[in-house]
């Protein structure tokens, strides 16, 4: 039996800095199948699909489409070769109308001497909505006025409008209501019957099992297995997704006092559309892990705790003084530190020297009479921190943008940890950081904990949360799903179950 693979990837790898997002993955996709990709956050699904859709270029390996080498350099280029993708994040231009969005970059087909025939374009859009059985969205309103679900529908139509052989859908159903889901399933069945290939990512396992012909499980950037979905159970899938020995070295030390008093109390925090009635306590000297899927609101919660985002309802109380933290100033004065996820744009002055970066949050410590900021004290302080945090650099005068990602992260952490804190909020502290420095950071977290400081660790990596936390708070759709205690023993399976 000879099978014609409509698309295949061979030994494809991709790294972002030291992070190996996809490692030597080989996959054959058949025409006329719905192929599901399953895995945790950071397992490499989106990266793999982005390479196929031309958004990222691979570091290594080969791709073939219809037997020919396939090397898209841009999404538009992939489009020309019959590959369309609806990405996970929102992909519409807010300032254009719906119809303009659908045909952006492809409007020449409606143009007569350069002038676009709007009626033709609208008719084509209407036909597309109707032909694919997708509920119509108004065509002449700005994309900014649409709901998330409507936006996703438009993106779907845009992807279909080029009549692709390969359609890639990255977590599209999460935003869909029941009837649109049903419509999508019908549509996919129809496309499948036409011999098209559909690559489908979903965190909804029952949906994936029911919809897909075959499923590929990815884990830590590597392919675990490709299986026929017939006869497969959810439990088997979950085991494949998470069953791993923890490779990284964690430096977990039990919290000194299991029942320490709280240092921070969150009470019914609500941010419209993002967080719903979130309540918890952070205790002195504990690491509280915050985990959840990408739309769970964990990163947003970190910003609320630091006073960066205002809560619409509820409050954050700093227990020592009973003060309500509702502004950045109060948070900083109460001794709360926040290391944001977006390191280069929010956590560092990348063009400036290591010295300036290290000194900025602690600047009050160098002020003498007449407001004199002693350069000598600053230099000494920076030199000490450089050594204490083992930052690899030519000296404190080196610009931060000449350092590796890991060392940049160390500078960012050091600038905060070197000042007197009561609470530290770390958002994805090991993102884009190599293994050695990751271990270093875990060690730091453990040390800081021993000083009686309360730590909130926000992370997309479950093993990291399990390895470092005393308690893990799992969020789902902006609400607290469950808090796990280390005493009960963290099991990856049970946590994933709550998360998904």
């Amino acid at each position, binding site marked *: 039996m000879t099978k014609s693979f409509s698309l295949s990837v061979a030994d494809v790898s991709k790294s972002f800095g030291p992070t190996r997002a996809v490692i030597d993955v080989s996959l054959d996709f058949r025409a006329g199948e719905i192929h599901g990709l399953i895995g945790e956050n950071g397992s490499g699904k989106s990266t793999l699909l982005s390479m196929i859709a031309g958004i990222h270029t691979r570091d290594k390996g080969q791709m073939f489409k219809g037997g020919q080498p396939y090397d898209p350099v841009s999404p538009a280029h992939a489009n020309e070769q019959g590959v369309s993708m609806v990405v996970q994040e929102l992909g519409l231009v807010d300032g254009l109308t719906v119809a303009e969005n659908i045909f952006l970059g492809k409007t020449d087909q409606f143009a007569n001497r350069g002038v676009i025939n709007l009626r033709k374009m609208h008719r084509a859009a209407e036909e597309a909505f109707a032909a694919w059985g997708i509920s119509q969205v108004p065509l002449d309103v700005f994309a900014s006025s649409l709901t998330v679900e409507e936006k996703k529908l438009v993106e779907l139509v845009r992807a279909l409008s080029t009549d692709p052989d390969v359609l890639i859908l990255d977590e599209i159903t999460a935003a869909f209501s029941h009837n649109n889901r049903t419509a999508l399933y019908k549509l996919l069945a129809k496309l499948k019957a036409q011999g098209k290939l559909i690559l489908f990512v979903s965190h909804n396992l029952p949906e994936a099992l029911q919809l897909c012909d075959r499923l590929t499980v990815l884990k830590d950037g590597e392919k675990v297995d490709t299986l026929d979905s017939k006869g497969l159970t959810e439990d088997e899938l979950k085991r494949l997704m998470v069953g791993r020995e923890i490779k990284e070295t964690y430096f977990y030390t039990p919290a000194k006092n299991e029942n320490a008093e709280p240092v921070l109390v969150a009470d019914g925090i609500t941010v419209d559309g993002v967080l719903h009635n979130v309540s918890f306590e952070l205790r002195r000297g504990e690491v509280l892990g915050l985990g959840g899927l990408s739309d769970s609101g964990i990163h947003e919660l970190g910003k609320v705790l630091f006073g960066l985002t205002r809560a619409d309802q509820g409050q954050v109380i700093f227990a020592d003084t009973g003060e309500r933290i509702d502004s950045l100033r109060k948070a900083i004065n109460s001794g709360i530190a926040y290391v944001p996820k977006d390191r280069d744009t929010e956590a560092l*002055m990348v063009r400036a020297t290591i010295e300036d970066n290290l000194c*900025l*949050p602690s600047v009050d410590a160098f002020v003498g009479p007449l407001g004199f*900021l002693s350069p000598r004290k600053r230099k000494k302080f920076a030199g000490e921190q450089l050594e204490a945090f083992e930052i690899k650099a030519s000296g404190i005068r080196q610009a931060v943008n000449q350092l590796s990602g890991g060392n940049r992260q160390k500078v960012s952490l050091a*600038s905060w940890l070197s000042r007197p804190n009561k609470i530290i909020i770390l958002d994805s502290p090991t993102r884009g950081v190599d293994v050695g420095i990751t271990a270093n950071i875990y060690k730091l977290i453990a040390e800081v904990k021993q000083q009686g400081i309360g730590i909130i660790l926000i992370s997309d990596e479950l093993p990291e949360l399990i390895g470092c936390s005393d308690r893990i708070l799992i969020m789902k759709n902006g609400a607290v799903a469950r808090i796990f205690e280390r005493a009960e023993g963290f099991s990856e399976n049970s946590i994933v179950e709550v998360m998904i």
Partner: protein
Amino acid sequence: MKNRKLSWEHIIPFAGLVCLILLFTVLVGDKFWRPYNLKSILNQTVLYMFGGLGLIFVIAQGSIDLSQGAVLALSATISAILVNKYGLWLIFPSAILLGALFGLLNGVIISKLKVPSVTCTLAFSIAYRGLLPVFTRGGPIYVPFKLFDLYNFENMFPVLVLLTIIFGYLFEYTKVGYFSKAIGENEIKARNSGVPVEKMKIIAYVLCGIMAGIAGVFTLSRVGGVDVSIGNFFELEVMLAIFTGGVPVTGGMSTRIYRLFIGALTIGVLVNGLTLYGVSAALAEGVKGLMLIGLVFLAARFTAGKRAVTA
């Protein structure tokens, strides 16, 4: 490689100044080196330096003040009226206070209401210049003869030294300067680190206004009075001086006071040399325009690091 880039960044402004001096020595020879001429270069330069001592705080933050010339004009005009009414002693207090007030207005609107600094200060510049005829009522206003004595190097130099010490200290050795540079590097990081960003922006514009006021007093002394063209172009000369000294448009930690002085001297020499060589003021404007684009472009290329310059 990296260190070489860093050193280029330091060398270029100095080299530019030296080249310009050499060029004009060749082109206009003696006339350039006459003591009278050198003194007039310095006198002109001191005004740019006054303006720059204030503007450098704003530029360090990555913003701009295009209203300095108009603030100079309006505060000098109102001060001249007040001085004629109430006596000469009022000149500095009123000019400084008015400058500070106009600066405060800029600072509050830019920081609290999030109006881009280019738009806000340009709009005020137009508005203040629109107010000028209201005060001058068509004719020039003269100031007492006594004030004329102020505009010579022997009087201005001590003032410059004093102000340089105060503003230099504030800029290089206190939180105000340090925070301003941090805002220019990364406003989000600065805010997260506890820098009172809004307060710092207001302070910077107030300082900018104060220095425009002081420069206004010396301009009054030079011209002997006020007419509607007073302070025309001032903000651009000052800006040009700072950028010529190698300060990037985006501001940040590499903004240093000494660069202002190098830049101001370069602009002083350029303007003087072009005039001596017989180039008209209009053509000199074109040369300055070319220099502005060229120098900002070069400064962005040679600043430590490679962050792209964006709007």
